[in-house]
C-alpha cells in the first residue's frame, strides 16, 4: 500500500488534535455558541455575522491558521491528516470562523506556486484570513463556470456563495478572460469590491455575494495567470473537500452524542426512550455512517499526503459519504428530540442548519458521485 497503514496519524497529529479538542471543549461549549448566534431569534439576524474575535485571536496565536502553509514560508507545514484532525474538532464545536475558508485558500495558493501566491501565503502567516470567491449565480462547483471577467487589468462581475465573506481580510478571486481562468488576490476593503451579505439559514456561518465593479489590480495580485487557474484548483480540490468533510464528521459526532445523551435521559412510558428500537436503531445507523465518513475522510487526507493520484476519488467519496451521513443524522437528531428538538432554544437546530449548509457547499452527494463515476470509468 502506498499509504501508511495508520493514515500518517503520528505523534504530532495526535497532539494537535488533542489540544484542539480540549481548547474547543473548554473555551467554546455549545451553550456559548447558542448565546453567541441564537440569543436573538428575529428573522433579521439571518444576515448577521456573529463570531468570537477574541477566541479567533487565540486560534491565530496557536498557529492553527498556518498549519497548511509550507515551512519555507514560515508556516507549520503540517500534513493534511493533521489539518483534518484539527478541523474535525472545530466542526464538533460548530465554530463560526474563517478557518476552513482560509485553509482552503492556502491549498489553492500552494498549488499555484507563483511569487504572488507565496506573498499571499505570507499574509496568512501574518494572521490574515482568506475566502475563495468563485461561485456563479447558480452555485455551480464546476471549475469552468464563472460570472467574473477580467480585461484590461479590471475585474467585473459577481462571485456568489462566498463563504465567511465578512470574516475574510482577502478574497481569492476566480475570473475569466480570453486566455482562460485566472486567480487574483484582492483585499476585502479594495474600492469597488462590494460585499452583499446573504441572509442564510445556517447561523454559524456567513455568506455573501461579492460584486466587483471595475476593480483594478497590480501584477503581484495575480496568483495564477489566465489559463493557469484550473490546474491549481484541480490540485487543491481534494484538500478542500476533505477538510469540509472533516468539519461535517466532527459536527456529526456532536449530533450523535447529544442525541444519545437525550435518549438516555428522556423518560417516556416509564423508560429512557433509548429503550425503543425506533430510537436506538437510527442512532446506531448514524454512528456507522459517521464512522465510515470519518475513515474515508482520513483516507482522503492521507492520499493527499501520500497517494495523490487517488486523492480526488477518495475525497469525493468522503464528501459524498459525509453529506449522506449528516443528512440522515441531522434529521434524526431533531426527530428523536421530539417536541423540544423543534424549538429554537434546543441546540440541535444549530448543527442541523450548519450541516445543511455544508451539504451543499462544494457540491452535494450526487454531484460528488457523478464526478467519482467519471473518474472510475475513465
Amino acid at each position, binding site marked *: 500500500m502506498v499509504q501508511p497503514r495508520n493514515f500518517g496519524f503520528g505523534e504530532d497529529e495526535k497532539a494537535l488534535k488533542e489540544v484542539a479538542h480540549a481548547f474547543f471543549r473548554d473555551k467554546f461549549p455549545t451553550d456559548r455558541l447558542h448565546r453567541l448566534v441564537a440569543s436573538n431569534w428575529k428573522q433579521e439576524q439571518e444576515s448577521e455575522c456573529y463570531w468570537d474575535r477574541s477566541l479567533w485571536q487565540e486560534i491565530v496565536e496557536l498557529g492553527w491558521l498556518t498549519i497548511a502553509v509550507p515551512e519555507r514560508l514560515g508556516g507549520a507545514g503540517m500534513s493534511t491528516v493533521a489539518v483534518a484532525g484539527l478541523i474535525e474538532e472545530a466542526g464538533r464545536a460548530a465554530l463560526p470562523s474563517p478557518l476552513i475558508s482560509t485553509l482552503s485558500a492556502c491549498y489553492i495558493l500552494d498549488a499555484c506556486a507563483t511569487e504572488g501566491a507565496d506573498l499571499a501565503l505570507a499574509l496568512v502567516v501574518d494572521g490574515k484570513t482568506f475566502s475563495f470567491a468563485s461561485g456563479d449565480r447558480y452555485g455551480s462547483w464546476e471549475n469552468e463556470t464563472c460570472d467574473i471577467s477580467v480585461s484590461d487589468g479590471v475585474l467585473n462581475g459577481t462571485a456568489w456563495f462566498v463563504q465567511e465573506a465578512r470574516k475574510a481580510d482577502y478574497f481569492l478571486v476566480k475570473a475569466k478572460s480570453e486566455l482562460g481562468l485566472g486567480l487574483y488576490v484582492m483585499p476585502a476593503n479594495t474600492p469597488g469590491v462590494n460585499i452583499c451579505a446573504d*441572509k442564510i439559514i445556517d447561523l454559524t456561518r456567513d455568506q455573501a455575494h461579492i460584486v466587483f465593479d471595475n476593480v483594478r489590480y497590480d501584477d503581484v495580485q495575480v496568483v495564477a495567470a489566465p489559463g493557469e487557474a484550473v490546474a491549481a484548483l484541480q490540485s487543491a480540490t481534494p484538500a478542500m473537500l476533505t477538510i469540509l468533510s472533516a468539519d461535517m464528521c466532527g459536527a456529526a459526532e456532536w449530533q450523535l452524542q447529544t442525541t444519545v445523551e437525550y435518549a438516555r435521559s428522556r423518560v417516556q412510558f416509564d423508560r429512557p426512550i433509548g429503550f425503543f428500537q425506533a430510537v436506538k436503531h437510527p442512532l446506531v445507523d448514524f454512528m456507522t455512517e459517521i464512522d465510515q465518513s470519518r475513515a474515508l475522510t482520513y483516507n482522503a487526507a492521507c492520499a493527499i499526503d501520500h497517494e495523490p493520484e487517488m486523492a480526488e476519488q477518495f475525497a469525493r467519496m468522503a464528501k459524498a459519504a459525509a453529506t449522506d451521513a449528516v443528512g440522515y443524522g441531522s434529521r434524526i437528531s431533531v426527530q428523536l428530540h421530539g417536541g423540544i428538538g423543534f424549538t429554537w432554544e434546543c441546540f440541535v437546530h444549530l448543527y442541523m442548519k450548519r450541516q445543511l449548509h455544508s451539504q451543499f457547499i462544494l457540491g452535494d452527494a450526487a454531484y460528488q458521485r457523478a464526478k467519482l463515476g467519471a473518474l472510475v470509468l475513465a
Partner: protein
Amino acid sequence: MAKNSAGETPEQSEFRAHCREWLKKNVPAPPAFKMPATSGGILSLEQLEYARSWQLSAYNAGLIGCDYPSEYGGGGRSNCQAIANQEMRNARTPVLAGMVGLQIVAGSMCIHGSEAVKRRFLGSIFSAQELWCQGFSEPCAGSDLASLQTFAQRKGDRWIINGHKVWTSMAQFADWMLLAARTDKHEKYKGLTVFVVPVKAELDKSVTVRPLVKITGDAEFNEVRLDNLEIEDSYRVGEIGEGWNVISTTLAHERGAGFYIEPLSGGQGLQSKSQKAEKIYPLVELARNSVKNGKPVSEDPVLMDRLMKMLTRSQGIRQMRRMRSVKDLAGNPARFAMQDKVVAADYLQQMSALAMEIQGCGSTLATSDPNAPDGGRWSRSYLDSFGATIAGGTNEIQRNIIGEKILGLAKTK
C-alpha cells in the same frame, strides 16, 4: 339509498350544487396583507379577522359543521362535509380561523360532552365566534401523553387547576382551551379528566401565555401556565377518570381518522390550487426552471428519478385518500385513515429535502433573502416539516398505533 353515477345520494348532489353556487359568488378576494397557509400561522389581528369573517360567512351558508346535529348548531346533514371541503378546495377559499376548534375540539365534544356543554359551545366553534386551543402536551408528556402532570383538584362543585402546557397553537387568540388534566395521581390512564377552561377571560390572571419559538424562528406556538385556575364542574367533558377516552377521540380527529370529517381550509394562501399531496407539481416547475452545476435540472437523470419517485408518492397518497372512501376496495377503511398522517408527513419532509437538492446552493438562503430561489420556501418547509413528523404524536408513535390497531401486533410499551 339511490346513488347517482358519481356515487352520491340526492342530498349530496343537491348540497354540492348549493356549495358550488354559493362559493361562486361569495369567496372573498385575497386581502392586501399576507395570509398564512394554515390557521396556525395566523399572527396578526387583521389576519385573524379576515379568517374569522370568512368562517362565519361559510358557516352561515351551511358549509361548516354540515354533518353535526342541528340542535347544536350543525347542518344536520349526512356525509356532506367532505363535499363542502372538495368545493371549498376547488374554490380556493381562505383559511378558517377556528381550525383548532373545528378539527380538534368539536368532534370529541360532540361525542363526549354533556348536553349543556354541546349547546353552549359547538355553535360558536362552527361560527368562529369563539376560538379554541388544545391543552394536552406538557414538557414531560410528549409521546407518552398519559404521563401528563397538570393537576385538577376537586373542591366541592369546582376544580382548581395548576400546570404547564406546551405546543399550544392559537393560545394567544383563544377564548377557550380543551384541557387534559390529572385528577388522580395513582392511576396513569384512568386518572385523567378533560375540561373546558377559559383562556382569554383569565389572561394574566390565572392563565399566562408565552410564545414558543420554533426551529424556523417563528413563534407559532405558545406555552401556557395555569396557576390556581378555578372552573365549575359543569365545564367537564366526559366522566371523571375517563379523560383518556376523550383524548383518544380528540387525537383521532386531529389525525383525520375520527368519526367527524373536519372542514378544510381552502388553500387561498397556497401557491398551487391543490392539497398538500399535490404540492409536487410546483417541484416539477422548479426542476424546469433550475440550473445546477451548469445544466438544467430537468436534464439531470438522478434528480429526475427522485422527482418522479416523489410524484408517484404524491399521486399514491392522493389515490389512497380516494380509495379510502371506496368501501369494497378499501377493506378496512381505518387502515387507510390511520396511515395518512405518517405518510403525508414523511412525504412533506422528503419532498422538501428533494427541492433543496434541486436548488443546490440556493437552499442555503433564508426566506428573507431576496435572491432565495422560490422565495426560500423549500428550506423553510423542510425545517417546518418536523412539525408534521413530531406534532400530534410523533411518526414513531403513530407507527406503533397502526401496527397495534391495524395489524394486531403486540403493544410496544
